[in-house]
């Protein structure tokens, strides 16, 4: 029989890595936030990439998000969805503190250089395809990009994404529909290429 408190069980269920947790006791909010930072750093980084379209800005956004989260650990009342909380902080920093500068800079840059983020594997055709999908996603408008990242990559449900982005669920669905129409071009093109290569 588990002796964990309901809250601790919930934390474990969300795969939040919790350090220094002792059975039957309460972890401090600081410990919970540190654990969440460790567990979710990659997804916060990816969200930062989706928001800003630039990996160096994603680095900065992640760092700022984690510092801000630790500063505010005492505001945490539930350890249930600290991942959503981190995402919300990241987006708030992006919108309020970073976006205006970064957008100006991004307009002068092609999105393509970031495609080198795609790991190079032995199969160059797969890599080319991955790079195409990557580029297509990164060229989506910001609202579609952040939604695609939350739902397709991070697995948030439509209603969870709607809550996180503070829009109606219908908006989430229409953003995804619009994004699919653009991604369809790449995926159909690739399917046709694959057909030709296999001699069909």
């Amino acid at each position, binding site marked *: 029989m588990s002796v964990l408190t309901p809250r601790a069980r919930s934390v474990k269920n969300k795969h939040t890595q919790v350090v220094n947790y002792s059975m039957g006791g309460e972890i401090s909010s600081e410990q919970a936030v540190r654990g969440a*930072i460790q567990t979710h750093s990659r997804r916060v980084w*990816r969200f930062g990439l989706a928001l800003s379209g630039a990996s160096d800005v994603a680095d900065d*956004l992640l760092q700022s998000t984690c510092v801000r989260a630790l500063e505010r650990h005492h505001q945490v009342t539930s350890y249930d969805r600290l991942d959503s909380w981190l995402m919300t902080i990241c987006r708030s*920093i992006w919108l309020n503190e970073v976006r205006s500068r970064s957008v100006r800079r991004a307009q002068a840059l092609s999105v393509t250089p970031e495609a080198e983020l795609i790991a190079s594997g032995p199969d160059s055709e797969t890599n080319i395809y991955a790079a195409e999908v990557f580029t297509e996603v990164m060229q989506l408008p910001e609202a579609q990009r952040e939604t695609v990242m939350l739902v397709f990559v991070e697995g948030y449900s439509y209603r969870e994404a709607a809550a996180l982005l503070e829009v109606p*669920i219908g908006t989430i669905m229409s953003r995804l529909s619009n*994004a699919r129409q653009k991604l369809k071009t790449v995926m159909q093109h690739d399917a046709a290429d694959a057909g030709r290569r296999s001699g069909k």
Partner: protein
Amino acid sequence: MTFSDETLMAYLVGNLEEVEAGAIESAVEADPELEQRLMALDPFAPVVHGVFDQLPAAAPQIDLPDPLTAAPVPPAGSALRLLAVAASVAVVAVSATFWATRPAPMGWAQQAAIYQSLYAPDTIAVLDTSPEALDVQFAHAEERLGRSLNREALEALPGMELKRAQTLSFKGKPLVQVVFADAQGQPFAFCVIRQGEGAPNKDVNEAVLSGLATATWAQDGFGYMLIGSSDQTDLDGQLDILTTTFAG
């Protein structure tokens, strides 16, 4: 209303008429089960997931301060004890040229100014300024500093509302930041750092650091700093009082 998998797939690939697509979207709003079915059928999600899931290739580097103590700490004392990482926050806020061209490691006053430059009226508007909260903060700060912060004098500073005393650390030395709101609600700070016996006394030096008017001085092993809300802030009134109050 139920939808077949074929209909849902047609929606996902954009092959449904607008009316039918609208019917599905309306139904999803009230039906989490339908939402789950739709998500599971989505042919785009696994493709995009496969491309992005491996990013970033290496675990991202995050610079966080060490936990101060294993035991839970009271909220009032634990908030923002993070000067060491303030510079990291500032990477976003401070221009890259500054970092590229800075000639030498920064002193405590420069770091404190960078940190303070991130403060906005919003930062201090929501702080808990109850006497109980301030009691805890001042007790903790004075204990770490090893000296009194003359709270009565700070509370009596003309035109200033005391908002918080926060214990930070710079290179292992306790650094206390006392934050005020001026008459316009703009943040204003008075910092005290314990530099240790033998640290040289320094006369008042006024400078603009990180876009903020500052005044620093040092006496009897402690460093002091006033930080205004802009490069135009007139510090003289507070400076006269504080240099007298903290004369040793």
